[in-house]
Each structure stands twice: as C-alpha cells, then as structure tokens.
C-alpha cells in the first residue's frame, strides 16, 4: 500500500478552488449575470411556489414583460446618451386617453368608422413622438438638464391627461374601445401573438439600431464624451433629439399594448411604472452615466423584475413582506452588479 500523494491532492483541491473562483469571476463579469440570477431565483422559488412554473404563469410573465420591455428599450436609448426620460408615465397616460377619445364607441371622434382604429393608433405614435421631440429639443437647443425637462413634461402631460379625460367623460376613464384595437393588447386567445410580436419587433429593431448602425455608435460616443463626439463630427444635437423621439415612440407603443389589454384609456395609466422602467434598464447593466448599455441587458433586467413581481404576487404576502423581499432581491442584484464592475475595472 502506498502513501497517498497529499501534495498532489492539495494541488488538485487548490486547482478546483481556483477554477471555481475563476468561474465565479467570469460569471460576475458576464453580461448574462442578471439572466443567471433570474434563473437561480426562479429555481429557488419553484419548490415554494410550484405555480410559478405553470405554463400559464410563464405565458403571463412574458405577456407582462412585453409593454414594460418596449418602454424600457426607449429609456435605454436615452440613458446611453447620458440622459433620462421621466416623462414616460405621462406619455403613457396622455396617448391612452387621446387615442381612446378618438376610438371609443361612446361619442368618439371617429366612432364606428373604419378610421377609428388607424386614427387611434396614429394618434398614439404622433403624440408619443411629438413629446419625445419636445423633450429632445429642450435638452439640446436650450441646454436644459434632461431630468428637469422630462420632469416638467411629466407633470404637464399627467395633468393634461386628467383634464382631457374630464372634458370627454363623466367617468374616470374612457372605455368602449373597438374590439379590433383591444385584440392588439390582449394576452388571451390569439391576441397575445400580436402584442408579443410587436414587443419582439421593437426589441430586434432596437438591438440592431444600437449595435449595427452609425446612429447607434453616435449614441455611445455621445454618452461616453459628448465634447469629443462633437469634435469628431457626430451631430450631437440631432442624435440626442432622436434618442428622445425614439423613447417617446417606444412609450407610445407600450401605451397601445397597455390600453388594449385594459380595454380602457386611463389618465393614470403607468403612473407608478417609472421606477420599473429605469430600474429594469439599470439592473440589466445600462449605465446612468451614459455610454454603456445594450437592448439585451434591458431585456434581462425586465425579465428579472417581471419574475420577481410575479413570484411575489403568487406568494400573496402582505405588502410589508412584498416590499422587504423586493428591496432585498434588487439590492442583491445591485451588489452583484457593483462587484462585477469592480472586477472588470481591475482586469
């Protein structure tokens, strides 16, 4: 019988630990970290709440993600140029009520005509784009901070949405929307296909725009250093304005999906969604300081928040525990993200 080679075993053990450590470092540095955390969270929760893995629940999560993803992608464009768009909730609200007032069977401007749905859809996009342009123009032409500009437009258009609704109905919202429009946002029956297709198209277009076009490179260059970008010939003003317009368009598309799903144009639509929008992008890894971000990161951030939301809903805990758990999970993700940045900086 020979003596075991203790030093070799120790070397192997050390090698295993090293490999494990390198693996952990690689994972922390990976752009898939948030996705991995989401999967881990899902797996931990599965035995506690088996309903989370039910096909219907998974479909619900995907359906819930759609509008949030679309609006968060718009926000990603603005964050990359070191801006922020706080006006998203008001764009959701004003586009919803104006379009609803056009389409509603209850004395709508285009009620019961073939133009009701196209007119409504057009109004969503035109108003969303126009508010985005207004934000962008104020930021670039007047050199105002995006925070102040979009905070002002948020307040103005949130108030305008309530005023507009009160001027058009005695109720708190505008209903009786055409079935053809409602089908767009529905997640049951075949409607979900339309909503998910729209979200998928926006995601692919957003990804291609940022990763494969000159315009996308301009945005990253502006976010990293606007002065250097300008000296290099990047049309900074135009590009920043377009980033805000894209954000407005995306928010309008999200508003179409939300309004269709709720069958109602509500002046308080999305009133509480701002933190989810910015939170999803930032948790995904998009930098608040500009110059860094990808659509796929935002996708992972939205997935992360959606899975947390769904799991907490399924747990049916009291609001106190919901807030505590959500806060802890987001904090854990933020710590992991900070550690990742520190490691990447060292490397």
């Amino acid at each position, binding site marked *: 019988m020979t003596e075991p080679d203790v030093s070799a075993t120790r070397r192997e053990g050390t090698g295993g630990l090293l490999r494990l450590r390198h693996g952990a470092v690689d994972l922390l540095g990976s752009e898939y970290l948030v996705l991995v955390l989401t999967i881990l969270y899902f797996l931990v929760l599965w035995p506690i*709440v088996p*309903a989370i893995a*039910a096909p*219907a*629940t998974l479909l*619900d999560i995907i359906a*819930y993600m759609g*509008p949030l993803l679309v609006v968060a992608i718009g926000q990603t464009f603005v964050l990359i140029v070191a801006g922020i768009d706080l006006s998203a909730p008001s764009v959701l609200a004003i586009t919803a009520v104006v379009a609803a007032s056009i389409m509603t069977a209850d004395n709508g401007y285009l009620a019961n005509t073939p133009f009701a749905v196209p007119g409504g859809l057009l109004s969503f996009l035109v108003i969303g784009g126009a508010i985005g342009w207004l934000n962008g123009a104020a930021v670039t032409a007047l050199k105002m901070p995006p925070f102040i500009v979009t905070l002002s437009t948020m307040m103005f258009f949130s108030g305008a949405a309530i005023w507009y*609704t*009160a001027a058009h109905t*005695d*109720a*708190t*919202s*505008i*209903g009786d929307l055409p079935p053809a429009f409602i089908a767009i946002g*529905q997640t*049951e029956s075949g409607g979900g296909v339309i909503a998910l297709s729209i979200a998928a198209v926006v995601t692919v277009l957003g990804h291609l725009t940022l990763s494969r076009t000159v315009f996308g490179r301009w945005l990253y260059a502006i976010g990293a250093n606007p002065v250097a970008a300008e000296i290099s010939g990047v049309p900074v003003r135009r590009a920043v304005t377009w980033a805000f317009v894209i954000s407005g368009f995306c928010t309008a598309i999200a508003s179409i999906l*939300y309004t269709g*799903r*709720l*069958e*109602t144009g*509500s002046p*308080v*639509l*999305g*009133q*509480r*969604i701002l933190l989810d929008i910015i939170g999803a992008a930032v948790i995904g890894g998009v930098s608040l300081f500009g110059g860094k971000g990808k659509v796929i990161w935002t996708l992972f951030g939205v997935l992360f928040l959606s899975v947390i*939301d*769904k799991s907490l*809903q*399924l*747990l*049916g*805990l*009291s*609001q106190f525990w*919901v807030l505590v758990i959500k806060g802890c999970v987001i904090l854990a993700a933020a710590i992991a993200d900070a550690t990742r940045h520190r490691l990447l900086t060292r490397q």
Partner: protein
Amino acid sequence: MLINRRDFTLASLLAAGTVGLPVFARSEGAKTIALLFDSLESPFWVSGLEIMRAKAKAAGWTSLEAISDTDDAKQFEQVKSMLSRKVDGILIIQTDSKAVIPAIRAANAAGVPMVHFNRPPAESDAYSVAIQADNRKIMQNTVQYLVDEARRLGGKYKACILIGNLGDVNAIQRRDGFFDVVNQHKDIIDVVARISTEWNADKAFADLTNAIQANPDINFLQTSSDFLHPQIEQVLKSANKWRKRGEEGHVIFGGFDGDEGGYQRLLDGYLDADGVQNLFLEVDMAFQAFEDLWAGKKPDKLLLDPGFVISHENMNEKRDQMWGYVVWKKKNG
C-alpha cells in the same frame, strides 16, 4: 429483508397517498381567497383589510394579499397570478371601474367568483358581485339630521359641501344625496360653496379656505368623507369657527364614512352627525356572496349596505357598529 420492485412501488404509492391525504382533505374544506386592494391610503381601507383578515381566519379560510398601488395593469396581473394559484375567490378593490372588466372576464373564464368591495365595476357582460354602501341614502339621512337640527335651532344657513372625485361613483351618489335633501329646504338653506376635492386633502384645504374667505357666514358644512376632517378642522379654527355643539357660532357639521376621527369629533361635540358605512356588515356581505357563489347561487350584481347615521343621541347604542369606534377603542382603551 429484501424488497422487490413491486413491493417498493406499492409502498411508494401508499406513502404518497398517505402524505397527500391531509392536503386533499384540506383542499376540500378550506378555502383560499385573494384580497386585492388598490391602496391602503385611508383608514377605511386599512380597517377593512384588518376586518377581512380576521373574518377569513375565523371562517377557516386562507387569505392571500396584494396591493396594486393604484396601477390597473398591475392589478390585472395580480388577478391572473391569483388565478394561477387557483384561489377559490377574489375580493377586489379596483382603481378604475372600466379597466377592471378584463380581470372579471379572466376570473369568469377560470370559474373563480369575484366580489368587488365598495366600488362596483362599470356595466359589462362580465359577471361579478359588488358590495357597496347605499351612499345616496346614507347621505340623505345624514343631511336630514343636520337640517332637522338647523330647524330646531332656527335661523338661516349658508351651506358648503366638500365633494369627492366626480369620476368616483361613490362621490357622485353622496353629492346627489346631499342635494336631494337641501333642495327641499331652500327656505332656510342656501348652498354657497361646492368644493370639488378630487379626494385630495391639500386641495380640500385650499378650496375650503377660499370658500370661507369668500363666504365668512358659512354655518352648515357637509363632507363626503371623514378623512378630510383634519383639514376642515384646521380651516374652521383659522376662521374662528371651530365651536362645539351648543356654543355660539357652532357650524352644523356632517361627516361620512364613520372613521376614528369622526367618532372623536362626535364625542368632542364638534361633529353633529356622521353617515356610517357599515364596514363589518359589508365584509360579511362580501363573504356571504362567496359562500353563495360557491354553493352555485347567483346573487345580484350589486348588493347594498344600508349604513346608518350616528349622532350624539344614538352614539352609545350605535357606536359598536361604527368601525372608526373600534379603531378608536383600540387606541384609547
């Protein structure tokens, strides 16, 4: 002892059956209901949730909770989550009466009863049961008490009403109840201020201040909700009009809801009468609606809580039915 594959399979099945039996037995008897609130911003809802929890526990039901933070889209997702959890019933307090309709349809499709608490949904082809206070009747009775008091005291009255959000059917019914009565007594009551508070305490404070400045002789005041009492008290104090019953310059003052502050002001003599939504009865009605729906019955779409008026005359007799008194008693012993 050797165990062959057949014995092992049989034993496993028996063990699984034995372990599963209590779960099955529990699922047969015990019910799980979802309590979906849109916010807990006023004492009415906080007390309502506490009463629901207690009554659900007493009935042997399990309750799951969620709060949508007045986000209709999120509340719809919460409904779907509860349907995934296969709850036996959903009690919902929605923000918007129209935006809740897709949620009712989803519950209908899943065969899960839905009961709306205090806020009925808009008219639709979807079926659900709503429990609501008979706002108009309760307000009529409250204002009638104030008018009788005014007639007893004699003189002419300049009246002011604080109205809620006109998009809220509860607010509209309360406003209508007020005018149903005062319009019959125009000989002594002249309504000089109609304040649309939009259920916003700051707005109520500012607009009531303006109304009192414009009409310093206001001496008859009705609010559509007790949660505005602190603002009313502040304004009346500033105008030197915060006087008790029987004191010179007392403003005849009516409340609505029956909260803790309402009871305290009634006790102190500043409030003449309070229209009370019988929260205990409303929870009982909601739970009874679940029982009926589970038993295959089909209750009416709208069930009304008649409520009652509490004043210094019947306070001792009625206060145990006033939810605000129960909260007050907990705090004050």
